[in-house]
C-alpha cells in the first residue's frame, strides 16, 4: 500500500524577473516500509520535493497524499501537526541545538509529539548512550548526525526524510550513518526517504527515483539492494 503519493507536483520560484521551475509535473508513489533514495544533481529539484512532502513548503500545483490524507490541502496548523507527528527530518548539517545536550536535543522533539519512543532506548539504538550529556560542540560530526537521527526517530514518525545525511561526513562515518538509517527502516519498520546526489547510495535502496531539471526521469524498484557495508564511493 502506498504510504505517500505525489500527483502532478509543480513548484515555481520567482527569482527577480525570472521564473524558476523547480518541479514540473512530478508524480510518484512510495510504499510503506520502503527505503527510498531520491537521486539527482544539485538543482534537480530533489530538495524542493523533500520540502513539499515534508510539509515545509507548498507546491504551485499538484497534490501530495499521506495514505489518503491530502497534505497539500492542509492549513498552517495541520501542517505543524503533520511535521510534529508524521514525519522526521535528518539534515545534511545535523542542525541540532547547540545549547542542548544530546539527550535534550532528542527530548526537544519528543516533548511535543503524541506517541514518542523512549529517549533512552533511541539513544542506545543510535549508539550514543554514553554521550547523552554531551553538547554538540563536544561531539564529532558523525555523533551529531546520530543525535539528529535519534531526534527524528524518537518522535515515532511514519516517514523519515533525510536530506543529504552523509553530505558533511567522511566515508566511514557516512557508511555508519547509512547503516543506522537502514536499521531504523528494517528494525523499526519506518519508511525512509534519503535525498542525495551520491549515486552509490542508491544501491542499498528498495526504490530509486532519479531526478533532473525538476522532473523524474526514472523511478524503479531495486530488486537486489546491496548491504550497506558493500557500498563504496
Amino acid at each position, binding site marked *: 500500500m502506498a504510504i505517500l503519493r505525489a500527483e502532478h507536483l509543480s513548484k515555481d520560484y520567482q527569482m527577480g524577473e525570472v521564473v524558476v521551475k523547480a518541479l514540473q509535473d512530478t508524480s510518484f508513489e512510495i510504499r510503506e516500509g520502503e527505503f527510498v533514495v531520491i537521486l539527482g544533481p544539485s538543482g534537480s529539484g530533489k530538495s524542493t520535493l523533500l520540502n513539499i512532502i515534508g510539509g*515545509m513548503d507548498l507546491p504551485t500545483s499538484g497534490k501530495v497524499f499521506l495514505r489518503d490524507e491530502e497534505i497539500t490541502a492542509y492549513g498552517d496548523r495541520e501542517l505543524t501537526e503533520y511535521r510534529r507527528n508524521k514525519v522526521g527530518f535528518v539534515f545534511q548539517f545535523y542542525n541540532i541545538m547547540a545549547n542542548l545536550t544530546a539527550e535534550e536535543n532528542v527530548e*526537544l522533539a519528543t516533548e511535543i509529539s503524541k506517541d514518542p519512543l523512549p529517549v533512552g532506548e533511541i539513544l542506545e539504538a543510535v549508539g550514543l548512550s554514553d554521550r547523552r550529556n554531551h553538547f554538540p560542540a563536544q561531539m564529532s560530526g558523525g555523533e551529531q548526525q546520530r543525535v539528529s537521527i535519534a*531526534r527524528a526517530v524518537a518522535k515515532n514518525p511514519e516517514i523519515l526524510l533525510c536530506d543529504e545525511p552523509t553530505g558533511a561526513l567522511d566515508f566511514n562515518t557516512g557508511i555508519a550513518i547509512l547503516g543506522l538509517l537502514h536499521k531504523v527502516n528494517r528494525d523499526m519498520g519506518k519508511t525512509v526517504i534519503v535525498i542525495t546526489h551520491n549515486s552509490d547510495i542508491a544501491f542499498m535502496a528498495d526504490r530509486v527515483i532519479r531526478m533532473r531539471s525538476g522532473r523524474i526521469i526514472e523511478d524503479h524498484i531495486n530488486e537486489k539492494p546491496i548491504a550497506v557495508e558493500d557500498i563504496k564511493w
Partner: protein
Amino acid sequence: MVKNRFALSKIDTMLARMIGHSKGQFAAVLTIIILGIAIYTAMNMTSVNMYKTVDDYYEENGFPDLFLQTAAVPSQEAERLKEIDGVKQATGRVSMDVPMITDDENERVNLRLITTTGGEDELSRSTVLEGKMISQSGNEALLIEEFAKARGIGIGDEIRIQAGGVQRTLEITGIAANPEYIYLMENTQSMLPDAENFGVCYVSEKFGQQAAGLSGSFNEILIRYEEDADEEALIDDVEDALDIYGVKQTVKQEDQLSNSIINQELTQLKNMANSLPVLFVLVAGLILMMMLSRLVKKDRIKIGILKAIGYSNRQVLFHYVKYALVCGILGGAAGAVLGMALAGGMTRLYLEYFHIPLLRVEFYYSYLIYAILLSAVFCTVSGLIGARGALKISIAEAMHAESPKLGKRILLEKLPFFWKRLSFSSKMISKNIFRNKKRTIFVLAGISLTYAMMLFTATMPDVMNQLMNEHFKEFQRMDYNIGFRTPVLRDTVRDMEHLIEVDYIEGKLEYPFELTNGNKKQSVSIIGLDRDTKFYTFYNADGVQTEIPKRGMLITENLAKALNVGKGDLVRIKSYIPNRDDVYLQVKDVIKQTLGMNAYMDIRTMGETLLEKNVINGVYADSKDPDINEKLIRAANVASVMSVADTRAVYEEYMDMTNLSIGAMVIFSGILGFCIVYNATIVSLGEREMEFSSLRVLGFSKLEIFFMIVRENNIIMILGILLGIPVGNIMARYSSEAFSTDIYTIDMSPTFSALIMAGVYTVVFVFLAQLATYRKIKKLDFLQALKNRES
C-alpha cells in the same frame, strides 16, 4: 515516559541557557527595568502615603477650608458666621508677627504669634509633641518644632518678644506641630523655609489680644465648609458679613502657603512617578526589541529546525517573547520589592522636609502587582514586536544559507570630494554606521536622551542661581525690606534715616488685595513704589524696560495669566477698607518677575485710590549699619525685616540638599546611556562576528577592531550629544512650565556650563559602556566563528 513536573521543557531549557549566554545584555536590560519599576513603586507609594498622611493630618487637626485676614472683628461675630449657608465651623484668632529678642543683638528673628484656645472644636489645632498644652491664663506658649529645634529651645525655656511696644516673656510649655506650617515659610517672598529665623508660637487668646491691642477681637477668621458647600457663594457671603470690619485677604485652602507648596511637591512627585519610569521601561523595551530582532535573525536556522520538528509558529514566537517576559517579570518583581523598600525611606525623607507628626507608611501590595504587570506587559509587547520576524521565517528557506545582503552605496559615497579623502578604516566606519540605520538611530536617540537628561539635571543648579540673581540682583536690589505694623505718614522715611544708618532709602506701600477680572480672582500684594525707584527694574514680556505708570499698574506675567488679562485691560480691585467702593485699574504693562506674583503702582496713586493719601507701610533700604537689627527690634512699629543676604544664605544651604538628588539623576541617566550603548554594541558584535573574524585573519588585532567599534560609537555619540541639545532644551522648556507656579516663574534655558557638564557626564558613561564591551571582544573566538555554521 515519566516526566518531572518541575523540570523545564527543553525549549525553556534552551531559553534559560540563551539568557545565561547573554547575561551581560540581560543584566543591562534588567537593570533599566529594575530602576524604572523601583522608581515607579517607590514614588507612587511615597506619593500615596504622603497624600494620605497629609489628608489624615488635616482631618485630625481641623485644617480650615478658608482663611480670612481681617481688621479687628469682634469675637462674637466669628460665631455668627456659622449661620451662613455652607459654613460648618468658624473660629477666630489673633495672629501677629513680632521680633524675638535673642542674645545676638544683630540677629533678626521673626516670630508669628497665633492665639489658640487648645479646644477640641478649634480649627487648625496644633499637635503637642512634647510637654503640655498652654493654659488660657498667663504667658505660656507652644513653640513650633522646627523653630525650637533650630534654635535649641526646650520646654521650660523662656523667650522674649517685642510686642505692642514692650518686651514680653513667654514660657515654653510644649513643642508643637501645626497643619498650617507643615512647610514652615514666613511668606511667599521668603522662597525657602528658614527655621532659625522664622518660627510660630501659640499663645492664649488673652495674651495675643493684649499684645496686638485687639481686646475682645480677632484679626483672622478660619472656616470649614459643609461637604456640599458652594465655595464661591460662601466666600461672597462671608466677605459681605465681615465687610464692615474690613477683610484684608481671603485665602482658600488650596492657596494656603504651606498647603500649596505641599500640593505642588506632591503633584510633581506624582508626575515624576508616572513619567520617569515610563522613560526607563520604554528604553528597556526598545533594547529588548533590538536584541530580539537580532536574535531571531541570528537564529534563522534554529527557528527553521524548530518548525520542522513540529513546533508551531506561536510556540516559536513565544520562545523568544519569553526572553522579554522573563526580563519583565524578574525586573518588575525585583524593582517592585526594591521600590517598596525605598518607599519607606523616601516617605521618611519627605517627612524630614515636611513636618507632619503622624506618619502613614503603608505598603500597598497592589503596586507590586501593578509594577510586575506593567513591566511584564510592556516587555511582552516589545518582545512581540522584536521577535515577530520569527513568524516570517519559512522552514525551506531557513535551511539554506542566507543570500548576502545587497550592497548599497551610502550617502557619503555620493559626495566624492569628501569620500575620497577618507582613510580605509574611516570608510569602513562610515559604512557601518549607515549599515544598520535602525540601530544607529536607536543608539543616537539613546545618547541624545541621556544627554538631554544630563543637561536638564545640570541646568537645575544654574536655574536656581539665576532665579536668585534675577530676583535679588536685577529685579530688586535693596539690602533690607522693612515692613511696618501699621501705616504711617511718608515723612517717617526721614525718621528711619535717623534710626539706622542708611545709604539709600525709599518708602513702600504693600497691601494684599483681591484682583478680579470676570470670574477670575487672585489675591496678591500690590506694591506701591516711587516712580523713580532705584530698587526695582521692570522689564515687560518683550524684554523692554518699563516704568511705573502715573495711573494704572504693572502686573506680573503669572498674574496676567491667572486673571486672563493683558495690557490695557481693566482689573477690579476689591478694597478691604470698610465702606469703600471697589476700584478699577488699568493694566499698563505686563512685567517679568521670577519670584512671586504681584502688581506695582505709583506709591502716591496707590495711597489715594486704594488706601489713604501720603502713607507708607514699609521701607526699602541699602544699609551697612552693623547694628541694624538691634535698632529695628526696638522700634515698636517694625513688623518685619527681610535681609537679602539671609535669604541667599538659606538658599545656599538648600542647594546642598538639591545636589544630592541631582547626583541621583546623573547616575540614573548614566545607567540608561550605559545600557543602551552596551547592548547595541554587543548586538552589533554578534552580527559582525564573521566580518571581524575575517579582519583578524587579515591581521587586525583585537584592539584595532575594538577601536573601530569605539570610533563608530564615538561618531554616533557626538551626533547624539548635538541632537541632545535641542531635546534637552525642549525638556527644559516643558519643565519651565511644569515647575513654574504662583510662587516661582522658572526659565530653564541651559547655560554653557550645563552644556559642558552634561557632555562630560555622557562621555564618561559611554566610555564605561565601551570598556565593558571590550571584555566581550577579547573573549570572541574569531577563528571558530569562521568555521561555524550556526545552529
